[in-house]
């Protein structure tokens, strides 16, 4: 059991999919302009990643080695289209917010990466756990990014219920005229991402140095 637990932990930190392995950067940079976009996207990725890991690890012995990647892509594409239809039908406001990014989850390296690296070698339960932990790691990184960008970029931290569009909480942290609007633009996205990644690398190096010195 501790193998699953350790894979759960490392999914969040050391092997953090976004800042550590640089998987799924495309959607991370683009979607993290607002909190509920980030959470919406995170939930969608958790769902798709977990199910794709489960299906792929269930079929891992049947899939011939030569064409394993195309089969993975087809499975993930089907799952994503199904998720897109469900969100379009039952959470329309979330659908209008996420829009093109739902269909981009397919080519999002994180799902394909985990499917190939982990799911195709481990059991169903381990893959499911890994899928959830990677998904949560992804969502956390999205949260960190969107918190920074939303607070610095618009000065207002707000979160609304995706299904009913009612704002749950919203308070202004930085008054209007001190807002750095650069963080809403692509430049800010790149900078925030670079700093977070650097911070994580610094943390990991520091931890390694501490273990090495002990």
């Amino acid at each position, binding site marked *: 059991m501790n193998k699953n637990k350790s894979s759960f932990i490392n999914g969040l930190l050391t092997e953090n999919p976004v800042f550590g392995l640089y998987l799924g950067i495309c959607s991370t940079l683009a979607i993290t302009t607002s909190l509920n976009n980030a959470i919406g996207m995170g939930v969608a990725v958790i769902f798709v990643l977990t199910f794709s890991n489960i299906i792929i690890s269930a079929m891992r012995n049947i899939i011939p080695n030569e064409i394993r990647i195309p089969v993975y*892509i087809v499975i993930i594409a089907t799952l994503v289209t199904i998720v897109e239809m469900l969100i379009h039908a039952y959470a329309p406001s979330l659908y209008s917010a996420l829009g093109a990014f739902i269909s981009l989850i397919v080519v999002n390296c994180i799902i394909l990466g985990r499917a190939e690296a982990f799911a195709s070698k481990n059991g169903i339960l381990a893959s499911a756990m890994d899928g959830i932990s990677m998904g949560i790691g992804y969502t956390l990184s999205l949260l960190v990014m969107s918190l920074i960008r939303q607070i610095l970029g618009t000065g207002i931290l707000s979160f609304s219920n995706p299904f009913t569009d009612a704002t749950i909480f919203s308070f202004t942290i930085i008054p209007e005229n001190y807002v750095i609007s650069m963080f809403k633009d692509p430049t800010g996205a790149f900078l925030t991402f670079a700093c977070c990644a650097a911070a994580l690398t610094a943390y990991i190096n520091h931890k390694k140095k501490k273990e090495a010195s002990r």
Partner: protein
Amino acid sequence: MELVSMFIAAVLINNIVLTKFLGMCPFLGVSKKMSSAVGMGVAVIFVIFGASLISYALYYLVLVPLHLEYMQLITFILVIASFVQFVEMVIKKYSPSLYKALGVYLPLITTNCTVLYVAQQNITEQYSLIETIVNSIAVPAGFLMVLVIFAAIRERLESADIPECFKGNPIALVCAATMALAFSAFAGLV
């Protein structure tokens, strides 16, 4: 005239890497040396142009009449993957020199977000055939341009003194941030 402004807009203003953040995986991975950046860029132009046209044709000739629009995502992916395999096979057979330059990067492109994005953009923006052709050349051209500029910067980075934790990809992203800032100056061009 409108096509030219569309071309400029796709290359300079809403450049696919700097404003839409697509193609980041190859952008970070391949741009260590100028030769590999150019190789990747040209391969991407070739694939995006071909795959978008086939997807455009397939969509309007097969998917729409049969009301199978929801199958669009899988079709485009399979078309892109098949086209990459087909191109690799043709290059292997007929021009070894081209294969030496581009062949290596072709399998990389199968999982590249830009190709799928352009194919879908042609459909969602309801472009006519000519606009699709222009768009399918302009977007990868923008990608190649940014990739080449970025490779040039990165080669100089090797000799720069960077803090420990910023080495590798983080500093590449800081460069990308400065480039995005520079490119945002083009906003009012067209």
